[in-house]
């Protein structure tokens, strides 16, 4: 009898203890008044123009603080620069996780570095929202704690390929790209999409970073006379390529770019509307980069970073920022990493007011944004299109 009571007591104690340890959730990076978020970006180095995304994100979090924070807590951002370098990236990630002990990681523009960091993040179990880098290997296959807050390369490539295919009479396409993983993440899925649509790619050209002239490439295009060109190039090289196309009279051929450039700034760089009249880019936002629906967000960036020039990168990370804040709010005052991840997994068709695609995250699918539109000049004005000649808004 005593024995049975003792056993029952022991069982109760054990259950309580087990429940207690299970309830001991991870609250690293949270204090009564702050939530620490680590933002990694390439603020120096030759990819520094991409850090505009992290700047935008930082401005957004500062604005959230000025709006009152989340359940009485302000967001404390810790910015780390990794110059698009793997060793620095791993050091930054480990520093944020083990030394600064942040609550979560948000940011990252460089895919290569993100992939190098992934094992460290997975091991630490810290929530990580990738808000600019596009390589799908980061978030697929899904892990417990990694979320992708922008369309992945496959999505962009499909959008690009679809748009090219939607132009009637497109039979051959020339592809020109940098020989790096960034360009591959767009151009490889784009080529696959074209292949599926039975469109031939007879010409594949390389134009590397830092080259100031594209004459050999354009002359080869002149020989091949494709119906469309896909260009996976950075901002400077895109402008040079478009100018050279015009130089040799090839500018009637439409060019599909990547989400690495935007129409307004390309026009500024090239300086001549004629040169960009046939240029198209995948477009993530609910409006043009400087359009009315984006004004609120651009103003937020300029409020905290008044010297910043708004480009197509500036607001891209803010989209996932809106979703993160929503999840933090839903998790309530008793915040923990587990609760946060649970809330993130419940985000469905969430309209961020910034990204044109709605965000959905589930435990089995962490590629949050599956959709993008295309931006092109129609009548001299940047217009969001859903396919060739078809605007997204209105007729």
């Amino acid at each position, binding site marked *: 009898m005593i024995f049975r009571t003792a056993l029952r007591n022991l069982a109760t104690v054990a259950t309580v203890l087990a429940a207690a340890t299970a309830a001991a959730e991870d609250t690293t990076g949270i204090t009564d008044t702050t939530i620490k978020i680590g933002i990694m970006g390439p*603020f*120096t180095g030759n990819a*520094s123009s991409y850090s505009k995304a992290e700047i935008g994100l930082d401005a957004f979090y500062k604005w959230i603080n000025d709006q009152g924070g989340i359940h009485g807590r302000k967001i404390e951002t810790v*910015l*780390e*620069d990794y*110059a*698009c*370098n*793997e*060793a*620095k990236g*791993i*050091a*930054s990630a*480990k*520093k944020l*996780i*083990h*030394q600064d002990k942040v609550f979560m990681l948000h940011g990252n523009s460089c895919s*290569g570095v993100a*992939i*190098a960091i992934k*094992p*460290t993040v997975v091991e630490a179990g810290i929530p990580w929202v990738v808000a600019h880098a596009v390589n799908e290997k980061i978030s697929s296959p899904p892990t417990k704690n990694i979320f992708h807050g922008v369309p992945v390369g496959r999505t962009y490539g499909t959008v690009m390929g679809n748009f090219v295919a939607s132009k009637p009479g497109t039979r051959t396409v020339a592809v020109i790209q940098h*020989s*790096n*993983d960034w360009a*591959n993440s767009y151009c490889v899925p784009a080529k696959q999409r074209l292949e599926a649509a039975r469109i031939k790619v007879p010409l594949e050209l390389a134009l590397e970073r830092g080259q100031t002239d594209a004459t050999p490439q354009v002359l080869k295009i002149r020989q091949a006379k494709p119906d469309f060109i896909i260009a996976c190039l950075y901002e400077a090289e895109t402008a040079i390529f478009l100018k050279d196309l015009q130089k040799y009279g090839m500018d009637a051929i439409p060019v599909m770019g990547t989400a690495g450039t935007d129409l307004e700034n390309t026009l500024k760089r090239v300086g001549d509307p004629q040169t960009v009249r046939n240029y198209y880019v995948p477009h993530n936002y609910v409006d043009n980069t400087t359009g009315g629906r984006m004004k609120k967000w651009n103003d937020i960036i300029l409020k905290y970073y008044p010297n910043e020039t708004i480009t197509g990168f500036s607001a891209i990370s803010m989209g996932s920022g809106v979703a993160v804040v929503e999840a933090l709010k839903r998790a309530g005052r008793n915040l923990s990493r587990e609760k946060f991840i649970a809330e993130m997994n419940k985000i469905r068709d969430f309209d961020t007011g910034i990204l044109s695609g709605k965000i959905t995250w589930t435990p089995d699918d962490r590629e949050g944004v599956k959709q993008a539109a295309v931006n092109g000049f129609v009548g001299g004005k940047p217009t969001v299109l859903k396919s060739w000649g078809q605007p997204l808004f209105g007729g």
Partner: protein
Amino acid sequence: MRDRRLFYVVPLLALLVPAFTNPYTQFVVNLMLVYILVTVGFNIVMGYLGQLAFANTAFFGIGAYTTALVMVYAKLPFLLALVLGAAAGALAGFLASVTALRGIRLYYLAIITLAFGELMRWVYIHADQVTRGTDGLPVPVASVFGFALDSEMRKYYVFLAIVVLVVKGTSNLLRSRVGRAIVAIRDNEFATASLGIPTAQYIVLAFVWSGFIVGIAGGMFAILIGRVVPESFGLIELIVQFAMVMVGGLGSLAGGVIGAVALTALPEYFRRFPGLEEMFFGALLVLILLFLPKGLVSFFARYLPVFREPLYRE
């Protein structure tokens, strides 16, 4: 001579390091160990042999890719892969020495070795069927005698053992007749040859040894980062490695160690000022070159005789 025993104490003390580190600082320490080998190797050719040979990143990359490739495709264990990486580095060193032997010196040598490094990088990028190009080659987790090196601490002990062995071996080599011959060649090649010393053999030896060491460093780098990408072995990397040698002290083994440690740790502090790191780094280099041209080691050598090396340039 008695002072030299101090150098045996350092590795023993080093065994205690993981007690004071978190995974971030441990990672930085591991990176330092890799770069100690890089600078030691670079110093052999630049400091002791006195040649302006910028092939270091080539050796580094060849070592890293070879180690990674045999681990991925031939599924070889890490230590064996490391040896192969070192051998590949040595072979590259041999190739580089051929140009030096043909009388190509000074700036010509600098430019052709630079070209060699960049050419290798182009190969890494475009041989992407094998190397996965710019996407990077993921390196499987290394394991040594059954222990998986899956934490920074475990990597540390393996790296420490390798570095101590290699540095000690190099130190012995440099203090032997081989080292003296190499330095003699640096100071006056024709005079040395006229003494009957086979300068060609020693030049080749210096390059091969340098390539061997830096190849080992490359293999270590590969498993430390877990991913081998072509961009890691470009001109920016070369500048950083060059700076480590110069800041630490050209032609000094201890200097190489100091330079590697200093220039791996410092950028971590510079990161506090995002956007200004390049300026700080460049300014630091300029200041050291102006005021401490023999490198940081000369500062220590003034107060601690143990740092003075007999073959160090006057």
